[in-house]
């Protein structure tokens, strides 16, 4: 095998290994919890906000 072909092959394998390393160490699914964390936080906050909104509207109707 000539130099250029061999160096190209080794370089391609080297680059591929870099991508593999990142995907093994940091699985793609791990990016998902960010959205999930936010969704969970929003879901947990919603009842708090809803109850406060209800209290607010009750107070408002009492005033009216």
């Amino acid at each position, binding site marked *: 095998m*000539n*130099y*250029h072909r*061999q*160096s190209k092959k*080794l*370089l391609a*394998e*080297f680059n591929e*290994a*870099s991508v*593999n*390393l*990142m995907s*093994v*160490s*940091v699985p*793609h699914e*791990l*990016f*998902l*919890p*960010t*959205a999930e*964390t*936010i*969704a*969970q*936080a*929003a879901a*947990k*906050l*919603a009842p*708090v*906000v809803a109850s*406060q*909104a209800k209290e607010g509207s009750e107070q408002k109707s009492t005033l009216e």
Partner: protein
Amino acid sequence: MEKIQIKLALTLALLISAFGLKAQNFDNAKAYQDYILAEQALVVNENIAYISKSLHDHKARQNEAERKQIVQHLEAAIAKVEAMPSFSGDNTLKEAAIEVFGLYKETYQVALKAAEATELSKQSPIAEMEAYFSLLAKAESQLIEAGKKFVKVQKTFDRTHKLAREENKVFCLFSEVAAVNAHCRKVFQAYARVSEHGKVFFEAMKKKQIESMEKSRSALIAEAETALAELQKVGGHNGNLEYLEKAKALTHFLRATAQGDFVEIIKINQSTQATFDDSNRFNKW
């Protein structure tokens, strides 16, 4: 795919802010903490995307737009957390979040801006690449230190308000990305220093500079010895040896080429009586 996730995360964050800021107080420690953690998750996710891209993509202009957008998001996150009330008189988590977002912002405006200014290409000298990597390493370390500070306060907040201890997953993920990047940089730099002499050799060959060819050939062999010794010490990353082994294979190949074929090439270029066969052999190489 990642862009879609970031957009989704942004939409959700806007939803949270719409809910959260209307709430005048957070009477539940967990909800209060989750609100702040959600903001942190959002900015750390952007940190990961930017830092990962910076390692592989050195196009300054593209990175600048993203970096400026992250700074804007950090400013928005700071404003949102600043607008939050304290939790039962406890301001620690809120203040820690404001501080950590501020430190992130500073890193993006100073260290990462400086890294971005180093526009690299395949032709860039090794010193420029090493300077770029060193700026990235510094920025990553600043982001990790800022994150550690926040995690420490989060632990105290958990204890004070009797919350079940939960690991800060996004921060752990960012630390892991930074560790992989550091490993990649170390391995890549060792190989790149060797490869640099190869580039010099071919440049000298084009100009028929025999002395420079011989000098770079010897330098390549010496650098390959150093790199192989360094790579031996580095070891794998969390048991992953593939990247390291491929770097070693490339380095061995370059050293063997310098010890064998480069000598032949120098001889052919030196000779005033190179035959047709010599040229043919060299052309097929």
